[in-house]
């Protein structure tokens, strides 16, 4: 584009007068932004629901060292998420989820680099950084799968809890968690954990699929032919959004 050519009589177009896309934002990019606004509310609703459940249960009030799992109060997250693969039996609170979070944020950085390479029409770098982003996404999903699996299987001793079964109160030992019972605390804790991290994981998964599509199209020269790598930017917006949501999910489930 001869963007720098100034000739007499040339006028700066008026952005809001019609006949032009305001601020040169393409319709696709606008649509992505509006979709993200909408998705923000989907996640907000879930997190608000989580918040109401969280505060309808009493918190554990004693010393952290005295903490035991019980469905009478909300668990302390450091004691729930303290496992790391290959380090069985060692208490490493929040280490694994910290690694996961770091990987996801790092994949956002590589996404930025891919978008930047796209602005320069640098196909090789777009391919390289998209591959790193895809790898980051898959690693995060893999970590999440491990964490879910660990959460589902539970500790070796389990927790003795009073629950209703077939209409009567009974005491039983519960191992791990699923959607109806939970050894770490009230069932609502596991319900929300599975639902919200699962819903986020679904978003990450669709993001990875989109990233693969972008990588494929970049690699086959589709965007070079089209003359624009804007699609990388649009999918990048989605990827950053998914990362941002994770920051909130992480805060609410693991830190608060």
């Amino acid at each position, binding site marked *: 584009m001869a963007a720098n050519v100034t000739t007499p009589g040339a006028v700066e*177009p008026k952005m809001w007068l019609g006949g032009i896309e305001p601020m040169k934002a393409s319709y696709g990019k606008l649509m992505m932004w509006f979709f993200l606004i*909408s998705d923000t509310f989907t996640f907000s*609703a*879930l997190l608000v629901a989580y918040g109401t459940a969280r505060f309808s249960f009493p918190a554990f009030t004693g010393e952290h060292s005295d903490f035991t799992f019980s469905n009478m109060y909300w668990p302390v997250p450091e004691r729930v998420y303290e496992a790391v693969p290959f380090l069985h039996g060692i208490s490493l609170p929040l280490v694994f989820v910290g690694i996961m979070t770091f990987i996801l944020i790092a994949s956002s950085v590589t996404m930025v680099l891919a978008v930047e390479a796209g602005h320069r029409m640098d196909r090789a770098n777009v391919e390289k950084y998209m591959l790193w982003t895809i790898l980051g996404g898959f690693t995060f999903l893999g970590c999440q799968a491990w964490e879910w699996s660990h959460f589902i299987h539970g500790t070796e001793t389990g927790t003795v809890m009073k629950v209703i079964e077939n209409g009567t109160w009974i005491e039983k030992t519960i191992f791990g968690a699923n959607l109806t019972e939970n050894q770490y605390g009230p069932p609502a804790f596991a319900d929300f954990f599975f639902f919200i991290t699962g819903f986020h994981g679904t978003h990450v998964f669709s993001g990875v699929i989109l990233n693969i599509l972008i990588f494929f199209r970049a690699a086959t020269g589709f965007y070079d032919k089209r003359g624009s790598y804007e699609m990388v930017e649009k999918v990048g917006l989605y990827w950053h959004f998914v990362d941002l949501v994770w920051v909130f999910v992480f805060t609410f489930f693991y830190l608060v």
Partner: protein
Amino acid sequence: MSAIEGLETAHHHADEHEHHHEAQNFWQKYIFCEDHKVIAKQYLITGILWAVIGITMSVIFRIQLGLPDSNLSWLKPVLGGWISDAGKLDPNFYLALVTMHGTIMVFFVLTAGLSGTFSNFLIPLQIGARDMASGFMNMLSYWFFFIASVVMFASLFLQQGPAAGGWVIYPPLSALPQAHPGSGMGMTLWLASMALFIVSQLLGGINYITTVINLRTRGMSFDRLPLTIWSFLITAVLGLISFPVLFSSVLLLIFDRHFGTSFYLSDIYINGEALPNVGGSPILFQHLFWFLGHPEVYIVLLPALGITSEVIATNSRKPIFGYRAMIASMLGIAFLAFIVWAHHMFVTGMNPFLGSVFMFLTLIIAVPSAVKGFNYITTLWKGNIVFTPGMLFSIGLVSLFVSGGLTGIILGNSALDIQLHDTYFVVAHFHLVMGAASAFGLFAGVYHWFPKMFGRMMSTSLGQIHFWLTFIGIYLVFIPMHYVGIAGFPRRYYQFTSYDFTHKFMDMNMFISIAAIFTFFAQFIFLWNFFYSIFKGRKAPQNPWRSNTLEWTAPINPGHGNWEGDIPAVYRWSYDYSKPGAKEDFIPQNIPYSQTPESNLPHENEQIAMEKLIESQNFNDQFKSNH
């Protein structure tokens, strides 16, 4: 500096890729069509079919309520087993009818049928665009709506009946399949249908917003947009923000129903046996639901108000009174819509202080609503009113909006609501202010834009008869209903024959039912007029209402792309009616000020200098770019 030169180069480059119009086959032209006009008609026809089903349901349960002794055996061919051998309506099916009437009318008729039809039809035509930003997404939006419709329609034929927990589907009733016949497969299909419906709304809404922002023709700045477009834009934003919350709450409900979670369930006994669910909160669902549910009221109403603004200004032959105040009040209503939801929940045991906060916010809505009401009346004041059917329905809308809005002030009061909650007073209130008012907006829109949609005119006299019968009928139904509500009749009851306090109101209930049946039959005049005129109506002139907006500058039967040649540029707002000094009593938006020196105001003469700029700023014609 990105000069016009630069863009111009890009332009020529793009010209080479100009769209080639291939002959379209039947499927591309009428079924999987990406043309906004066809999609609008698809929405309209589907909406009308749903309206027929939804209103018929209401007549059936009105017969049950007002004429409890009547023998309904004649409905057996349609309802089959839902009518007992003694000719009585099955009580469970009564609940299903009420639920489906609400669902169908709110979502499928007044959301998809109203907003889907007119946003699709008018946005590109009135802002001067070839089509929506993404025709493909627009098509997907309709077909998601269609699948949602099929799923909902299929649920009517289940042996156990469709969903029956009320259109608000509160858990635990909706969450426990064993709670009620309608909470089984019927509720499953309801939830599936609504999830698809939300996807459709999202695809449509994103498209509407983007199109309005990006594809306005040259000169169409935001302060020259017709109020219809403003209302569709704000409606789309409301939907964009509120529907995802319903989506979340529906997903959680699906998990409670099918996967054993306890998001909304706690401490429940069924037949004396305790359920294992602990820790959930049914009130949580109400909060999430009404965070959609209240904006939904405005999603239904705002397009109708936008249509009314346009029709009233055109047919009063006067500029709309308070154009900017209209926009501001719509923005105000839209903002307030999100912070008043708990006024639906005053009796859920919420903190009375919180109740008073929500009461305060709710009552503030009366301010922008009153601004709109006054603006309509002052627009009519001393106008040369033309009583077209569209105009009559618009004036009718204002009347219903005012009389329904008054009772809103009563219901918004948390102390009074304790008495009136879930009575027929509420039913009468929202049927006037959002139900009938929006339906009037829909009628006004159909009568007004029918010539543009089908190139033919609807019969004016049949339209006028239809209006008067409907208008009188609606008031005959809903004014007495307020009294029944004050007397304490609760909503959703199968019959009122066994309580002492209801006996002396039986005649009034019967009157309401007869008025409802009367209004129902009046709608067949519309159906006849509509379908007959599509094929046999008088051929329409290009601008039958002598209106200013851009759609009337397009050919009578606009093809794909709406305008032949260049899209017209816009030089003025759309309300230059009866301008002093002008030759005609209307000046369309595409007439430059330089051609109307006799009627220009001083500041408008200054705008003549802008015309060259406006004309040259032609960068987003979808036929000339890579869209």
